[in-house]
């Protein structure tokens, strides 16, 4: 049951001939070789598979690929622009907000989505917005700090 699905992937027009019911996660990882998007639980609990669709974070493990038809999809591989890291990526590095790194693509993209919606979040809003992304190593406090400083850099003003 092959469907033709066209969408924008990391800025590039992309056309796939795939079964539209297949999860976006596995299409990205296996068909397209974009392995930065991770499998963590397969049920949408952990957020390791987070991608941006129209700038909003979605769990690709639960998303049939047909649902991104004509949409703009960004994976962790597409966040860097012209060799320049996104401020959130940069802040994660500067705050050493990672250990094993497996959850980090999902954390970064979820944070980008959070800042897209709310450019000046309070600490409590960051916690609320990140609460469904899991990290087992315990990098949480640094991830929160990184998001706060990325917000500052992107907006040039302190969060209220």
């Amino acid at each position, binding site marked *: 049951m092959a469907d033709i699905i066209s969408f924008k992937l990391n800025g590039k027009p992309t056309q796939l001939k795939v079964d539209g019911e297949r999860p976006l996660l596995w299409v990205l990882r*296996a068909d397209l070789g974009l*392995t*930065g998007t991770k499998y963590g639980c397969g049920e949408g609990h952990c957020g390791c598979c987070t991608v941006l669709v129209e700038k909003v974070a979605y769990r690709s493990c639960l998303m049939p690929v047909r649902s991104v038809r004509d949409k703009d999809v960004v994976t962790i591989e597409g966040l860097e622009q012209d060799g320049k890291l996104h401020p959130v990526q940069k802040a994660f590095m500067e705050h050493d907000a990672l250990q094993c790194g497996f959850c980090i693509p999902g954390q970064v993209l979820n944070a980008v989505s959070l800042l897209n919606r709310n450019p000046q979040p309070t600490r409590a809003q960051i*916690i609320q917005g990140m609460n469904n992304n899991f990290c*087992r190593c315990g990098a*949480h406090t640094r991830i929160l700090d990184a998001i706060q400083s990325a917000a500052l850099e992107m907006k040039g003003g302190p969060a209220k």
Partner: protein
Amino acid sequence: MNANDYLALNFKDIKDFSDLYPQNRREFLKRLGGGIIICVALGEFLAQAQEAGRARGFGRGLPSDFNAFLHIGEDGRVTGFTGKIEMGQGPITSLPQMLAEELDTPLDTVEMVMGDTALCPWDMGTFGSMTTRMFGPAMQAMAAEAKAVLLELAAAALKIPQTQLTARDGVIFDKENPEHRMTYGQLTAGKKIERHIEGKPPLKESSTFTIVGKPLLHRDGRAKVTGTAHYAGDIRLPGMLYAKILRPPAHDAKLKSVDTAPAKKIPGVQVVQDDELIAVLHELPDVADDALDRIKAEFDVPEARVDDKNIFAHLLSAAPPANVLTSGGDLEAGRKLAAKTIETTYLNSYVAHAAMETHTAIAQIEGDKATVWASTQNPFGAQGEIAQALGLPVKNVRIITPFVGGGFGGKTYNQQAVEAARLAKIIGKPVQVMWSREEEFFFDTFRPAAIVKISSGVDAAGKMVFWDYDVYYAGERGAQQFYTVPNHRTSGHGRGWQGAEHPFHTGAWRAPGNNTNTFARESQIDQMAAAAGIDPVEFRLNNLSDDKMIRVLKTAAETFGWTPAKAPSQRGYGVACGIDAGTYVAAIAEVAVDTKTGAVQIKRVACAQDMGLAVNPEGAKIQMEGCITMGMGYALTEEVHFKGRKVLDTNFDSYEIPRFAWVPKIETVILEAHDKPPQGGGEPAIVVMGAVIANAIHDATGARLCQLPMTPERVKAAIQVV
């Protein structure tokens, strides 16, 4: 050369892995091209630790010639080779720091090749917080020897006596005339020098360090924030298939019947049945998953005898006899001196490792050789397990360990790698096995359920007079108490963290044994302090004579801003101390307890530790923060639910791990101890988390929690009986 070049060189050029096996490693050294190679027989540095690992059944003996080496290429770049692996704990940063320090070369010229059984020296595995304290000294010795060689070369080339030369930032120069200089690259170009260290070369004084002891960011940060860091599941090989394996519903279930025909109807699906191993394979992982769902299988599941409620009674009834670990004084005499005696039984449930990356491997078989990329803490163990499963000589199996997405002790066994290798051999194509989260929970080697019974007493002056301690099933790590109590006995029941009495496999879980033992000991100490009507920090200080622990505890108290009060003070403050992997740690927490629901929120944690020299203090602090955060899980929610040998938790919906909303304000302090050898850093701070929270809950409410995890139901029940 950089680290990737070594891997690439090997993929393309090396047809026979036996060239790389230690007996033939000289062949490998030849292939490295020019430069300086320093080899060390780790006997001097590691024998004790590695022998301990061998005794635990982790592997074979030490290679007899040399088993660690360092290469300085003709471009002056330095590569260290280690069988240790990077799973977030930071050796990819701290080991190069140690090399660069002794070599006097810029840190960015140093790289590591890690966890590749063909390239790296045999290693028993990455666990026990041993990488820095056990392997670091060998790295330093190789670097010191390399620098000695470079000085010899420079003396000859510049015609200046060695005593007049000095090294800095990858350059050797005349102290009196600094323009007489040569870079390491210039010195190694066109050379081919191999040295074997005899004895221990002199090392730098720690007071002169300029790289070690400096806080550094993780060197793998950029790869990890851009998604380019490769884990085992990210390796792609031509023609590879993804496998999904039929699993029983419970560990002792027997397959009655199976019908794989519906799975075979999916185009491209292949089914493999090899003894107990039944798998479906497809070039797309989700299609393989669909195929697995179509297999109709019936199992006989024996009647469940134990479950998560009656497990403790079962374990106690089956408990092996006591093995006395230490004793002193006279317990009966001590009992008579006690003004207050406290007897308590402490319990903790099975706990899962739950690394975000599930067990994953991809195997490729070519002729009689196997190459397997595996998420493992124990690549040489995997090599042996796969060799045995495939009937190949060990030297024909190569394990490559990419980044590991968390281990915590859970990736020391390599079932998934063996499964991938068996299937690759049968199917004749590379095969990836990536466990689902459900498989991960099912096959995890859980931290064992355990019991500690303590009877102890305190006299009218607030001094501990006796201590009678029995630990069942947790293991002995951390069981030894460190207070000054004249009459004492500490006994262990069961062989460490494994035992046939458990309904499923159990294993090492971050600081194995010590989480259980420290929870029990430090809760009991608090109970005695409360019984004596003495502030719990003061009570500990009154009963400690170990200066290191006293300093650590006082530092934690100062950092927190502790003011003395008898518990329960209703402030919600708790304290706990512990020793793990050579490191001393003390933590103080503040909690808020919702007495209606029993929910506990940890507001802040101050933690101090003395870990000797902290090679990368920033990395060490991150590990402390990670320990504190992860430790909240086993303290508050983490508990494996099961019925018989069926694991009821299959995902994160019922098994709750710490989340952002839980995270307290964390303050960490590493005590200055630059002149002392480095100790463990990845585990110690987690051991105090059970007791520090239990003691804080008691301080807030007067309720004493003696069972982990301290779920809202248990907290509520404990409050109701205060």
